[in-house]
């Protein structure tokens, strides 16, 4: 590691935003599962490290009837995996959490970190997208919220400015009968990045939401496809149509070492169909 940095671990949000304001070239440290690798390999350099794990607001992990969940930026992926109510209400999010990295990585990695790292294949992105999650961002100018679907701007790029700090993610409450599923395809069964990820959600009004990961420069919510689906009846036969149709929305990398575009096109269709069948099967999901 060639970076030489100082390390600051504030206990208040104010101190944190102040520090960000005063120090350019600061990297924010939560779980560190992306940052430390990047620093070790000198892919990123920094002069300051701001550890956010001791900030009380960022350790909030609460559910409020009618408002849903708030998941603070210091909450680890395994904490999410272990949250029973969240698994009942938002199965795709729990399944995304279960699939991320390895158990050891999930012990440190955070949901917010996964989103802020903005990998196109971030396992928690597609599940959060189908639930209309919002990202809460603090800076010295105050706190603002933005829709997750507007958050990603490119491979490893987001709307965040250097002095911004994401404090958490909120997920609106869901009604009884709301169901979802997260499916992914990787090269091996154990810890691996995904080649294709898909989250599908069906609400009690039978409205289907779909989001994809790892098949374009950003994780995407497929609003247009959802509108087309809304015009159709949700039957098992729709699966084949969906498998073909969804391929027109993706744009996989041509030069990826992990998978050829051909395979990603194929699997996107396969997983979309499987996900749909799981959701409309009364026994499933």
């Amino acid at each position, binding site marked *: *590691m*060639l970076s030489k940095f100082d390390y600051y671990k504030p206990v208040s949000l104010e101190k944190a935003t102040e520090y960000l304001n005063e120090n350019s070239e600061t990297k924010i440290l939560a779980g560190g599962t992306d940052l430390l690798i990047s620093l070790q390999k000198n892919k990123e350099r920094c002069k300051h490290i701001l550890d956010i794990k001791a900030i009380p607001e960022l350790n909030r992990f609460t559910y409020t009837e009618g408002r849903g969940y708030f998941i603070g930026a210091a909450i680890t992926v395994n904490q999410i995996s272990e949250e029973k109510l969240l698994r009942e209400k938002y199965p795709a999010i729990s399944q995304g959490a279960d699939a991320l990295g390895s158990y050891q990585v999930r012990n440190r990695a955070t949901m917010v970190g996964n989103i802020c790292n903005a990998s196109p294949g971030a396992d928690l992105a597609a599940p959060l997208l189908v639930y209309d999650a919002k990202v809460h961002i603090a800076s010295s100018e105050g706190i603002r919220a933005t829709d997750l679907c507007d958050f990603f701007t490119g491979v490893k790029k987001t709307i965040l400015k250097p002095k911004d700090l994401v404090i958490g993610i909120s997920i609106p409450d869901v009604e009884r009968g709301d169901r979802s599923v997260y499916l992914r395809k990787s*090269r*091996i069964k154990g810890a691996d990045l995904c080649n294709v990820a898909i989250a599908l959600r069906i609400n009690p009004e039978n409205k289907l939401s779909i989001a994809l990961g790892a098949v374009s420069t950003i994780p995407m919510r497929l609003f247009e496809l959802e509108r087309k689906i809304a015009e159709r009846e949700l039957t098992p036969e729709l699966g084949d149509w969906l498998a073909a149709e969804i391929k027109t929305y993706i744009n996989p990398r041509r030069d990826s*070492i992990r998978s*050829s575009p051909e395979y990603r096109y*194929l699997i996107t269709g396969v997983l979309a169909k499987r996900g749909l069948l799981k959701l409309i099967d009364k026994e499933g999901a």
Partner: protein
Amino acid sequence: MDKRQYKYIGKSPDRSEALEKVTGRAAYVHDMELPGMLYAKALHSPYARAKIVSIDVSAAKALPGVKAVLTGEDAPYLVGLYMIDKRIIAKDIVRYQGEVVAAVAATDERIAEEAVSLIKVEYEVLPSVQTIDEALEAKILVHEDINDLEYMKGVFFPQKDSNIASWNKTVRGDVEKAFEESYLVVENEMYLPAAAHTPLETHAAIAEADPYSDRIKIWSSAQSPFAVRQLMAKSFGIAESDIQVIIPYVGGGFGGKAGIHLEPLSALLSKACKGRPVKYKATREEEFNQLPTRAAMRGRIKTGVTKDGKITAMKVYYDWDSGAYADYGVNVGKTAIYSGAGAYEIPNVEIHSRTLYTNKVFSTAYRGFGHLETHWVIERQMDMVAQKLGIDPYDFRMINILGPGKTTVSGEVITESTGSPSDCLKAVAREINWTGYQSEEEREIQRKTGKVRGKGLALLHKAPAMPAFTSTASIIQIDGDGKVKVMIGAIDIGQGANTAMRQIAAEVLDIPLENVEVVWESDTQKNPYDWQTVASKLTFMGGNAVIKAAEDMIKQMKEVAAQVFRCDVSKLSHGDGYIYHVHHPHKKLSYGNLARGYSYENGNAIGGVIIGRGTYIADGLTNLDKETGEGLPALVWTYGAHGVDLEVDLETGDVHILKIASAFDLGQAINKKMIEGQIMGGVLQGIGSALSEGLKFNAEGKLLNPTFTDYKIPSAKDIPDEIVPILIENPQADGPFGARGVGEHPMISVPSVIGNALYDALGINFHKLPLNPENIALAIAAHHTS
């Protein structure tokens, strides 16, 4: 000895070092810190082939804490196992991406890394040799001086003005005539990519080179301390006896730590730092980029058969994409000419094995070297020929299988003592309930479920690949309490050798297992010689040496006891830690009483310190004839077979292994539990090669997957539902208690058996590894559109 009476042989005692390892007490080179120690880091070439125009190390040298910066100018030494072709640091030209161009020693790793970042190298990028065909074309020579390189003559055959580091051949009978007379001739081309060893512990070495003499002391994670010593002495032009190599615990090697690797560079850095110890531990990226791999290989095979399934002729070209330096690669290539026809009797054979230089990371030994690769070709070809003939591939194998009275391609006649490949094949076929390929109708019924089952079989054989003169030794010393310490020259790198040697010594001496310790931390200053820890030869050769040392010890103790009892030595026997008179068993002396000489009541003493000595040499082996490949290369053949039952997801291409059965004729199990562990580990490593592993290079020779992010080895979740080890025990007459080696074998033929089962499931023949979900799914899609 009747095997049913064994006390320790064939049982399953725990590994002797198990407690130390699971509690984290076992210390590896990685853990070692010495007073005044410095840390090394290297600068690697970003190009596959380039001229080094200039190197500026001034900024690196000026950095506080930096004690030495070396470039190729400072290291005018060539090193090599069989071809002396590799510089310790590249000079004038780099031959692969990842080659060391400069190295730094500094007071800590961070400073060393920063210093490396300050070295400025100007390269002139040159066109490079990236493919097997480019290597054969020889428009560019990887080694422009190939005609002048020093090499092991009579064994390897480098070709003039070419990229062929060695061209080995077997020519037996008349293949062309036999093809003409064949009922059917089947030709195929198979391929597998380069693969990494991925030991848990990366390479690490610490060197302390006396600046005032030639003496060098090394601690290394190497498999073969005596080979390190010999190769380094030759390279530096110093005496072997001036080099001391110490091996503490080793975290896996799989062949990647055989030969010589980080030791000479660490030694040069230490010398440049006035003898301060210098530690070089490879990062995982260096493990992939800089340190050697398993070669990629292309096999072009042609098989001729009679109508009733007898193989009459086989012609194969094995071309090894072996990277920039020969290292073990030429020997890997050599195995193909005596082993590369499979465990079959074939009257007319032509095998050409060409180890090729290319501008990629160089290759070396990897568990069962040469065999997983050649068996991918042979055992897939056996199935493809059987398909064309319309014969059950089990029957086709059995028609041609080696056995007593049959002759190998090198002209060796197999005997009962060699073991039985057919026992192995029968056992796995029974275990997976093999009844022949399923029909297209049966497949069609399954297809509707989205998943298809398939079964496959594959045979294998392997003999140690080693020089005809390979030898090893053992010394056993005894304490006053009758406990013994065994020293061998080979290394327990995790395979459990020391536990096996302990069992053998306890059995021969007839003393409790806890009274035997095999000494860890092998040291060339103290341990007796062993050629190398490779080739699954340790149990066989080391085991025989330990038997001889233990017998020698008993003989010495009996000689003293015979004086005490005033009887002939022939009247004495041993058991339970005593030498006793066979007719008057109450006349007995404990080993402890004889360990340091026997003392009479009046103080007279006879005998002396008892030290057992045993040596074993691979006698009777010969070099193979340059033109025909005729000779005796095999000290011991171990036969084996795999049978697999798997399921393929027709849409995703996922392979789920329900059961894999693996049978080996290992003569006599020394430690059942450890053998079963070896089989499970080897099978899983083979599954890695079969399903997910493989180095990927871009057109310019840059390695694209030098980390575990994109080099995927099997994880715990990828373990088959069931792995069934089957131990077959047809003893080898000159094996220790009849045993043969089996350490490497479980990995061999695993890709082939999976490929064969995929044919059964899908009706598709795969020719390339890996059989990852993507390759399978796209093949299924193409198969159904065609």
